[in-house]
């Protein structure tokens, strides 16, 4: 290598010279001026605090402690009940905020570290990052809305994402610092920090997903092919490999190995959770065996010959569980190594031998390029050995086990869903397994019951046996993940969304810790898809939605269009892909409303809060990632409804519709303070049942800027869904009526009568107009904002 001295060089006569400029030292290369920089590029902790305070004033945190003590430092344990402060001076309320921030720290770190890890893998597998363009074709100009919005960077190659991750990593450390004893003491500032963490989380997800789309050529856009989903789709005539986790590069290497060696007829690959979703974007040979809720059951049913895990949401006792059914495990990520040997340098055949012979229960292979060969060979060689044994309980064994049950109830007390397993066993002992079989779906597969059974009954296995006929028939369909929403789709739906004629974007996302089984997620998606909402699914809720079929044997992905448009039910992708749902809302502001998004977070969040009727539904939210995802959605002005187990996150953000003073905004045209009603009423709210969740979600799609046509449609759905699921009108529907134009024409007379009789509003019956009553402001050119600085002409 020749080092050049500073100066001017004449290189005209040189031949075969390749000059590479990696980075310009000293001064950085100025970025192309693609848009004026907004006020908060790469915001630090205090920069968006003013926006957080606007949100937290309207939606203050509601805390439900899961533990009334603290033992984070050695001055504890501190009893924080009854307004007592800890030895460090912290209150129980602030302590809840602290725990929430801690959860968001873990969640955000998981996404960001996954993204950073992937950059390393991509460099290793695909070559230099600056040679991999971020170019998603002619349908997408705004390639990375969150990145542009938060950092002000317009990434051109995957290498540009390094700077994005550096920004995230520095800020995670700063926020993590605030968790130390003797730092933050205010619950509200902990929440502002949790919002900051949530925002970083959204950014990390986006960067991770666009990196993998660009590097692995994941297909994007509508009309994706259908994929198999469900435990029944695994073909045990072949050797079966199961991939579990979230970081797909090792799984892509398995796909390559199978396809390069034409082994599709001999080896089946299925997946659990997001690795399944992401590797199926790489190759459609991957089946989606199950969501997280079935992880233990897929393993314990003995369907799998080799398990490959990467990171996040994988059972910590995976070796012990896999050992029960003779399945070796390959650990392909340094976040999770279970005290096993790292075998990357070894001869693959030696590793295979060790795993097949049972010399070792598992190995660590950190180079994704080493995983495919070992996994495939292990699965192929162990298959004949494993097939000699039956892993599902025999009829006699099952009978023996269920008859041993004394119905003592220990398992029920251990069970997160309080399942009456003893009753199921009792009936099964009498020859009727139907109750036990039905409990299979309500079970979240945690395995706690087994550990407390005094009779040592393998409850997970008895349930699998009872449900085995159903499991074999569990064969659904979902679309392959589509990733980002096209700019062209946003142009089509921008106006209907902001005007309300498409009543909202519903985002069922997150994990499988449901209160009452997987069918609920299908019901939620179907209800909103049928009503013309755009339903954007990601993660485990997505996988479970595909399990159910209508009378014609069709899943929702076959009956509803695969487009981001009215009535579409789409697979956006894995957990990191749900950044594209944030992105869709940002693009509405950018492409449809022509707002500058560069480094302009608060203005865009304010736009979304007041105009874009989007609402998340995380019915089975379980992980810390789900906590940071929700915080990221909330800070961007998108509310979310969570299932009842989510009370254990300890915090929700609730508005008070009875406090009129909370619902004033500015009209940006003139600075007038106007009452807009409770829209959206809550930012993060726990629902108890889906009958409650569904109308509530519809309600949370109403926005201050809804046009009368849009509001009447949203109101119709809200009332209708209340009647359908709760049997009556909601008691607050009048709060959303600004004038008679907000009332659906078909029901106008009936609704006016109710307003007159129940609310004492004055109606002019000749013209069917409301003369007196509604308090809510609306004007066709109304420009609502919660941010004073966005007022254009201040009132004197």
């Amino acid at each position, binding site marked *: 290598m020749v080092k050049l001295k500073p100066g001017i060089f004449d290189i005209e006569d040189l031949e075969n010279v390749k000059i590479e400029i990696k980075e310009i030292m000293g001064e950085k290369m100025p970025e192309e001026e693609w848009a004026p920089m907004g006020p908060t590029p790469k915001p630090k902790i205090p920069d968006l605090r003013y926006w957080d305070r606007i949100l937290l004033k309207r939606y203050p945190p509601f805390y*439900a*402690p899961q533990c*009334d003590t603290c033992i984070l430092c050695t001055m504890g344990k501190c009893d924080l009940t009854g307004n007592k402060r800890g030895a460090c001076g912290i209150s*129980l309320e602030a302590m809840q905020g602290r725990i929430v921030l801690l959860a968001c720290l873990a969640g955000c770190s998981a996404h960001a570290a996954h993204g950073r890890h992937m950059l390393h893998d991509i460099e290793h597998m695909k070559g230099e990052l600056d040679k991999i363009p971020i170019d998603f074709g002619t349908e997408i100009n705004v390639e990375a809305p969150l990145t542009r919005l938060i950092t002000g960077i317009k990434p051109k190659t995957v290498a540009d994402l390094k700077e994005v991750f550096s920004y995230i990593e520095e800020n995670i450390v700063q926020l993590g610092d605030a968790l130390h004893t003797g730092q933050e003491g205010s619950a509200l500032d902990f929440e502002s920090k949790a919002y900051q963490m949530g925002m970083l989380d959204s950014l990390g997800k986006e960067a991770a997903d666009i990196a993998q789309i660009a590097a692995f050529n994941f297909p994007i856009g509508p009309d994706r092919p259908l994929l198999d989903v469900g435990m029944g789709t695994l073909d045990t005539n072949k050797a079966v490999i199961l991939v579990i986790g979230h970081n797909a590069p090792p799984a892509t290497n398995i796909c390559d190995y199978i396809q390069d060696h034409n082994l599709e007829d001999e080896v089946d690959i299925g997946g659990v959770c997001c690795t399944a979703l992401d590797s199926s974007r790489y190759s459609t040979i991957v089946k989606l065996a199950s969501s997280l809720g079935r992880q233990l059951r897929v393993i314990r049913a003995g369907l799998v010959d080799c398990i490959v895990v990467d990171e996040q949401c994988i059972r910590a006792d995976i070796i012990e569980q896999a050992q029960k059914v003779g399945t070796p495990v390959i650990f392909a990520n340094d976040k999770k190594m279970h005290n096993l040997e790292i075998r990357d340098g070894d001869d693959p055949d030696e590793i295979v031998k060790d795993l097949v012979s049972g010399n070792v229960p598992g190995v660590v292979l950190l180079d994704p390029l080493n995983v495919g060969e070992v996994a495939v060979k292990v699965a192929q060689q162990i298959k004949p050995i494993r097939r000699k044994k039956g892993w599902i309980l025999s009829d006699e064994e099952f009978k023996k086990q269920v008859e041993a049950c004394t119905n003592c109830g220990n398992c029920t007390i251990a069970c997160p869903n309080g399942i009456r397993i003893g009753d199921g066993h009792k009936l099964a002992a009498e020859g009727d397994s139907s109750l036990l079989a039905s409990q299979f779906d309500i079970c979240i597969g945690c395995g706690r019951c087994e550990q407390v059974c005094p009779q040592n009954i393998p409850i997970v296995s008895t349930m699998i046996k009872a449900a085995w006929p159903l499991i074999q028939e569990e064969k659904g369909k979902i679309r392959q993940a589509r990733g980002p929403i096209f700019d062209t789709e946003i142009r089509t739906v921008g106006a209907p969304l902001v005007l309300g004629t498409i009543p909202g974007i519903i985002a069922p996302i997150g994990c499988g810790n449901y209160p009452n089984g997987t069918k609920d997620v299908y019901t939620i998606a179907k209800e909103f898809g049928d009503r013309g909402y755009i339903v954007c699914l990601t993660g485990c809720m997505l996988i479970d939605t595909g399990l159910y079929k209508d009378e014609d044997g069709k899943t929702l992905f076959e009956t509803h269009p695969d487009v981001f448009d009215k009535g579409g039910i789409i697979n956006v992708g894995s957990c990191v892909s749900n950044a594209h749902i944030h992105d869709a809302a940002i693009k509405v502001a950018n492409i449809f409303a022509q707002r500058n998004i560069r480094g302009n977070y608060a203005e865009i969040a304010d736009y979304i809060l007041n105009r874009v009727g989007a609402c998340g539904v995380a019915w089975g939210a379980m992980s810390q990632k789900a906590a940071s995802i929700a915080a990221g959605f909330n800070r961007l002005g998108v509310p979310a409804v969570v299932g009842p*187990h989510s009370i254990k996150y300890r915090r929700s953000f609730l508005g008070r519709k009875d406090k009129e003073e909370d619902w004033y905004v500015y009209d940006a045209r003139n600075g007038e303070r106007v009452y807009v009603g409770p829209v959206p009423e809550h930012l993060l709210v726990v629902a*108890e*049942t889906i009958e409650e969740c569904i109308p509530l979600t519809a309600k949370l799609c109403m926005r201050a800027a809804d046009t009368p046509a849009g509001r009447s449609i949203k109101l119709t759905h809200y009332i209708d869904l209340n009647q359908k699921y709760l049997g009556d009108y909601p*008691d607050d529907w009048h709060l959303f009526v600004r004038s008679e134009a907000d009332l659906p024409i078909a029901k106008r007379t009936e609704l006016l009568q109710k307003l007159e009789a129940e609310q004492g509003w004055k109606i002019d019956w000749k013209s069917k107009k409301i003369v007196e009553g509604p308090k809510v402001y609306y004007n066709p050119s109304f420009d609502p904002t919660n941010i004073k600085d966005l007022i254009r002409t201040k009132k004197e």
Partner: protein
Amino acid sequence: MAELKMLPFDAGNIPGPKMGRVTAPKIIGKMIKRAKKPLLICGSNIEEHGSIDKAIEIGKKGIPIAASGNAIVAFRNKGYMDNVKYVLLNDLANCLRDPEWKGLDGKGNYDTVIFIGSLYYLTSGILASLKNFVPHIKALAIDPYYQPNADMTFGDIWRKKDEYLAMLDEVIGEL
């Protein structure tokens, strides 16, 4: 069996130094009777154990009912809607913590809330909030479970439906 009775239905649900007192039904009944403004909060499991009929009996004694989740449907099916209102439990609890809240009847906040038909873990979280941040309200739990975050609670009796219903009758007897 007092010890057994303090067993939470979620075995790990041990919140800390302040745990709900297992209380005899008669005393709970007297507490409700003495309350200036009680509210019976019925959850989505109200049809389990036959609790709904007992809740209606309590309602008939003049105690207003808040029905959360889909419990309102159960009351409507029973033809009893006299003093029953739908609530979202998370939202209701948020209002309860404000002493200035006007209540479901517009006449002010409550001084005693009684939980029945609860989704156990959800209500446990809500009770933790009331216990720690809402000193102006007494929270009682009359489900067949031990609720560690309630001020006063029934013990662990879910395996014995008849005994449980008899306990509810004792409560009602005091009203």
